[in-house]
């Protein structure tokens, strides 16, 4: 039954990913199509309010300036709202203002689509903040990521000097993708018992006569965009492990598919832009192969359980249930964990800190690679970056000028890609080392031994990959952690995005070289494996030592 339900979920994904990719192509290709009839009249007044008259294409620089400035505006407003939230409306539970370093961490966390949470929603945010800051940024950061990814794809697949109009992309991403899907999924979730109310915390008398306070709120509307936008920040502290956020097996599957389907559809959208569906399949297959390997490790590790507990003479046949929920069991927990770190959502339905060492290695490794489907847009862009790198390395090996999609790859592109690839490990490993060298960093560790190393490594990896899940035992709501992870999230998002937009701009301007018999093909199975090899090689060379010190060492000590 376990294996079967996992296969069914993957099967549904395969069915819906391609149509979604096609749909996204229609939305962003800017050719007129059927969806214009429905959404055009809604977008028209919005373009008018923004003052977007011509919707002219932008150079990569203008595109980058536009998305950064928009993000700056959203951050500024959100910062103020969180600092004064206690005096604003919709605060039935009398929640106070947030302190500055926590606000800084929170706004960066949400605008970068990370959703690392150093606060707990029940006690840290008013309903108004949950709506006007958290839900709002869940939409806008996802739309920003998707727009940038689309612009990147336009840059490498078309010829000219412009890569689209950011404002137009941003509006369309909301109106044609995120709003309709979010409202639909919100209502489906409410029908399946996820609350959606503005009433304050409930107070009930339990069966044994005690009083139980039950936190509640507008949960469902956050839940849907949290997954669709691969955001991942929970309404409650324990995120989708909370029975109100994720009450049963069906909602679990809906949440998994919500965060996974758009990310899995993007390679197909890219295939349409590249006018070669095979290109899309190459990228999708590479992602899916990596995913299946990771899923197998996670499921097997969790099903085998924790040797320390298995040795106590109890019936441990179910697997490692510490930190998991009965309604999900091992299968739906392992699947959720693998998807949430693949799609860099960061929502959790079980506590990743409590995973067995090898089970915990899976989310860590997926975030280190940051290419297995990936967050809104970012995963596709990263995978394409590795594809260009794979072409470059292969070209060097056979002594031919590397080409990708009919364009020569030259030193400018490779320099920019090197910056993007090296930033990721640097902003993970350097802060991890700093944290271990200082008492401010070490003081947060709550699990002794090698697991403590994993806790710190996980926190920075999650921040850099803009994932946002955590080994949540880490006592991370301190100025040291708020500022350090805030900076890591910031650099993790914007350095690679801007570098890659620059790559797109430079590819865009190049002469196309005609395809000949000698052209190195990037649309076949051989290239899929070259791509996988490049990803694994770079990832392993960079991160293996750190992984050995954390999860592997822990695994060997409790085996």
């Amino acid at each position, binding site marked *: 039954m376990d294996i*079967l*339900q996992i296969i069914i979920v993957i099967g549904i994904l395969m069915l819906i990913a391609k149509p979604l990719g096609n749909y996204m192509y229609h939305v962003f290709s800017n050719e007129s199509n059927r969806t214009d009839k429905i959404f055009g009249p809604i977008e028209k007044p*919005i373009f008018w*309010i*923004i003052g977007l008259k011509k919707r002219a294409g932008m150079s990569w620089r*203008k595109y980058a300036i536009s998305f950064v*400035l928009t993000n700056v*505006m*959203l951050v500024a*407003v959100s910062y103020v709202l969180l600092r004064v939230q206690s005096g604003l409306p919709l605060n039935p539970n009398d929640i106070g203002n947030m302190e500055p370093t926590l606000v800084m961490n929170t706004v960066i966390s949400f605008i970068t689509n990370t959703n690392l949470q150093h606060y*707990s929603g029940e*006690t840290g945010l008013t309903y108004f903040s949950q709506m*006007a800051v958290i839900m709002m940024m869940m939409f*806008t950061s996802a739309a920003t990521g998707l727009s940038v990814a689309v612009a990147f794809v336009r840059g490498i697949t078309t010829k000219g000097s412009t890569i689209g109009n950011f*404002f137009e992309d941003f509006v369309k991403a*909301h109106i044609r993708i995120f*709003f309709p899907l979010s*409202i639909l999924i*919100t209502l489906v979730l409410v*029908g*399946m018992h996820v*609350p*959606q*109310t503005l009433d304050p915390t409930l107070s*009930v*008398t*339990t*069966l*044994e006569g*005690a009083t*139980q*306070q*039950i*936190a509640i709120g507008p949960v469902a*509307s956050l839940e849907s965009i949290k997954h669709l936008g691969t955001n991942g920040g929970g309404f409650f*502290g*324990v995120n989708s492990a*909370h*029975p*109100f956020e994720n009450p*049963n*097996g069906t909602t679990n599957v809906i949440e998994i598919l919500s965060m996974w389907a758009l990310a899995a559809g993007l390679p197909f959208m890219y295939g349409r832009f590249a006018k070669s569906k095979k290109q899309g399949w190459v990228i999708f297959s590479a992602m899916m192969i990596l995913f299946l390997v990771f899923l197998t490790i996670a499921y097997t590790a969790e099903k085998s359980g924790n040797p320390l507990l298995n040795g*106590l003479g*109890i019936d441990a046949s*179910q697997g490692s*249930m*510490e*930190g*998991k929920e*009965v*309604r999900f*069991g091992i*299968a*739906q927990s392992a699947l959720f964990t693998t998807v949430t770190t693949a799609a860099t959502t960061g929502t959790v*339905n079980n506590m990743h800190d409590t995973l*067995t060492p090898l089970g915990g290695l899976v989310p860590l490794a997926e975030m280190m690679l940051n290419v297995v489907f990936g967050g809104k847009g970012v995963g596709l862009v990263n995978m394409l970056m590795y594809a260009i790198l794979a072409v470059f390395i292969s070209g060097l090996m056979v002594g031919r000028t590397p080409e990708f999609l009919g364009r020569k790859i030259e030193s400018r592109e490779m320099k920019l890609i090197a910056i993007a690839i090296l930033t990721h490990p640097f902003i993970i490993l350097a802060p991890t080392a700093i944290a271990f060298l200082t008492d401010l960093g070490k003081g947060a560790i709550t*699990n002794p031994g090698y*697991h403590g190393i994993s*806790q710190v490594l996980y926190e920075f990896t999650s921040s850099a990959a803009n994932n946002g899940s955590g080994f949540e*035992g880490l006592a991370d709501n301190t100025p040291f952690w708020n500022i350090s992870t805030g900076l890591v999230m910031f650099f993790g998002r914007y350095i690679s995005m801007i570098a890659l937009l620059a790559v797109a701009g430079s590819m865009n301007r190049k002469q196309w070289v005609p395809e000949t018999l000698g052209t190195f093909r990037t649309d076949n199975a051989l290239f899929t494996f070259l791509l996988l090899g490049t990803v694994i090689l770079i990832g392993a060379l960079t991160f293996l030592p750190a992984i050995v010190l954390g999860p592997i060492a822990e695994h060997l000590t409790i085996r």
Partner: protein
Amino acid sequence: MSTITKDGQAESSSVGSILWMALRMSILFIILCGIAYPFISTGLAQLLFPAQANGSLLKDKEGNVVGSELIGQAFTDPKYFQGRVSSIDYKAEASGSNNYGPSNPDMLERTKASIEQWKKDNPDVPIDQLPIALITNSGSGLDPHITPQSASVQIPRISKLTGISEQELQSLVDEYTENRDLGIFGDKRVNVLKINLALREALK
């Protein structure tokens, strides 16, 4: 020189217009995403699914609210079915667990203590039948469910304390065992609050 200045001016004026557009768009989308969307969602949810939207409250026969069917409760009386370990003692104004890593000695100690307690409370059921789910901390600390097996192993104790026969209790467990969702997703489970509510009715 003049062309460069011209270009520079053109570039700076366009940054200004981008800034102005970015500001207008940000304010518009804060209103759309942060206010319109959640209010529309709340309105539709309250209209279409009022019971679910307000926390799926559970009432006893007299109509008193006894909790939410989705949120677990602490049961200390041994004649009731017991839920899973909760480091927050099922206090649902917050949520969470200790986040013990797999090698954490405190977790090992806690589990050993649970086993000793089990031996004391359930002398008739050997520990090799004690399911791991019952003595591990749930992720949320609010898990409303236990596995069917975790319910069955508590029957001898409850039968002894309440006088209800083991067969009757087993059929109660069977009755309250919920299937996988849509017959396939998730695991089989027993809602502890629901079965204890039925048990209380049976005792009256």
